[in-house]
């Protein structure tokens, strides 16, 4: 069975193994065309300066990367993205978990609430942005109207540089709620009930049960959602484009938005390609770090 050929003819094992590759082939081809090739092509592009319409290109080595390293605007983007991702994940996940705990009960009409909280997932980021543009209008928007009713003057959420980033963070958390809640719910419902029963018998209160049973048992879910939330926040684009267009004064110019502007508004393909690689490397490092350190704390059944 170890020889791939018997008497010069292929035997069953070889055919079996080869058929595996055949099944993989379509996916592999698509993967090469749409993922591998663009990734490598982008690398080549990042070493060039290219004219807006692509008719001229000159090779400049690492100039684009060096310019990024020196660029104050890019440092700002890095900082903004860090703050954005940090708060979106740090506030978004606990809020989602809380809502999931509530939705995990079997109160009457709970399925209505499950649908309502799931809804943000069903609309596109752009749509979410557009809805919030109306809600956040400083003069005729619902949010400031409600604030006025209780006696506060709401700020210019989208155009005040101090409020733009918090606003975008809030909208992104809202948008990610649906996905996080669904996954948390699934995780919560997989926790064996007899664990809780055993704890009750031992005299544990709700808080102890939460800390000692729930959290450890859903730790794989938490790890998974942390990674996806971080990556999704990093890639956040649609809502930011609609809400603030990266402004005001670069207050919400996250890495992906900066890349978009340089590639598709300013037509600086080479410079944008270099930014794409920086994002790739950052995400790679974050994911490696997460698996290494958080993986240890995760309890798998």
């Amino acid at each position, binding site marked *: 069975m170890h020889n*791939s050929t018997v008497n010069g003819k292929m035997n069953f094992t*070889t055919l079996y*193994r080869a058929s595996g590759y055949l099944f993989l082939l379509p996916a592999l081809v698509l993967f*090469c065309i749409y993922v*591998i*090739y663009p990734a*490598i*092509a982008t690398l*080549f*592009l990042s070493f*060039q*300066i*290219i*004219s*807006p*319409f*692509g*008719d*001229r*290109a*000159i*090779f400049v080595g690492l100039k684009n990367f060096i310019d990024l390293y020196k660029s104050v*605007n890019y440092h700002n983007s890095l900082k903004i993205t860090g703050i954005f991702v940090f708060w979106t994940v740090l506030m978004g996940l606990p809020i989602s978990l809380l809502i999931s705990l509530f939705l995990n009960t079997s109160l009457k009409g709970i399925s209505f609430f499950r649908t309502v909280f799931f809804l943000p997932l069903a609309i596109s980021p752009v749509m979410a942005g557009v809805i919030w543009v109306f809600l956040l209008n400083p*003069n*005729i928007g619902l949010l400031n109207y409600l604030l*006025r009713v209780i006696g506060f*003057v709401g700020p*210019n959420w*989208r*155009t*005040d*540089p*101090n409020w733009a980033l918090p606003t975008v963070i809030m909208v992104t958390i809202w948008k990610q709620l649906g996905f996080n809640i669904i996954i948390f719910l699934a995780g919560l419902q997989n926790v064996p009930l007899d664990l809780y029963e055993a704890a009750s018998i031992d005299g544990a209160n709700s808080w102890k049960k939460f800390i000692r049973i729930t959290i450890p048992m859903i730790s794989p879910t938490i790890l998974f959602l942390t990674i996806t939330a971080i990556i999704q926040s990093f890639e956040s684009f649609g809502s930011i484009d609609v809400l*603030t*267009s990266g*402004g*005001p*004064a*670069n207050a919400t110019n996250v890495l992906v938005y900066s890349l978009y*502007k340089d590639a*598709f*508004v*300013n*037509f*600086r393909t080479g410079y944008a390609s270099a930014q794409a690689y920086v994002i790739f490397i950052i995400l790679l490092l974050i994911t490696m770090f997460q698996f290494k350190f958080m993986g240890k704390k995760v309890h798998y059944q």
Partner: protein
Amino acid sequence: MNAQSQKRLLSIILVIIIALLPSTVFGNGKVEVTPVVQTDVEIVEPVEITFWYAVSGALGDVIQKMVTEFNASQDKITVVPEYVGEYVPALNKLRLAIQSKTTPNIAMTYDAGTRTMVDSNATVSVDALKAKYPSVKIDFSDYIQSAVNYYSFEGEQFALPFCLSSPILYYNKDRFREVGLDPDQPPKTYEEFLAAAEKLTDKSSARVKYGASWAIRSWLVETSVATQNGLFVDQENGRSGRATEVFLTEDPAVKFISMWAEMAKKGYYVSPGRNWADARNNFASGVSAMMLQSTAGLARTLADIGGRFELGTASFPKPAGSEGGVVYGGNGLWVMKGHPAVEEKAALMFIAWLTQPKQQITLSVNTGYYPLTNAAISELTESGYYKENPHFYTALEQALTSKSTPATAGAVIGVHTEVRNIVENGIEEIIATNADVKTVLAKQKAEIDALLAEYNLMFK
């Protein structure tokens, strides 16, 4: 195959892919030149040409209407209009089309894309078309010369000036009366503008009324510089050569932006962000009493006001004694290379039709964009249109009294969009942090100059 040779096979495949890639990605720097035999052609069979336009809403409707009219007026040419997104996405789409050789016959590009289009070498200039197809009757001698100059370089006219506009001052006459200002004496200088804004600001209730609110757009800075007969960039505004320096720290720009900063600092001005529509909302809803905005938004603004208050319009304010004029914004139409001669001729014929007074008038009265020929202007004047709609004349008067100088010709920059973005970032920073105007402008200037240098590297 065992694991070893499987890995080897995969690595070989990857190496081949990687080795082949450079040939597809590195440009060879050459531009294809199709040999052209300059003979006129006869359009025998009906021909279809594609027209990409980049405006929506009421303006998009006007264009659709005009195209339908053109198609109905003759039976040889059918223009197929297609809305390809707003100005920036449209230019993107055009860029990709050029690279994949799937360009339309006619493309609409905004003012900031002009140098990019010329440098792209992907268009056939209007003058070249006129020379190729002399049987098409098209004449630009009746056009407002500055409009044609905007889209011309080194004596060659590249595109059709299509929707042209300039900013004007919109003001709320009722509010003027309420605070004791003369509604027929709008502010003309920066000092008067600032003083009016102060009077018009009312912070007595939670619903603050601001003196003014206008969009944070570099175009307004460029206009202010031109009204003071200043250049925005060197090389005669980028027309006698590629720009290498932006004049953001010179008097004209500094004066305007300082006035803007002071108005914001004192609370007479509220920022609507960069969106023209948000500025218009502030004005039409009464949150602000004055607005600097394009005349192209006139029809829309009137509709939004809906008769709630009396609108006033006036020339863009400028320092006392300034001798300059306004610059143009808007868009132009470009004929793209790489199409058969009959299609090029058809495109030229459509363009010729658009230059007729009737078409100019249709466009202008439905939007606020200028009629660009003297014939159209005379017709509108004689029919009494401007008497009944004086606001539509405000910007036109501004344009007609502008002298033709390099300053009023408007800046032409290969990376105009990005330059505008940097200027706008600077203004946002000044307004948000009350930073020193000259310091911030110097910082932005450094960034822009570096950008211009990088762009010019392409053309050494």
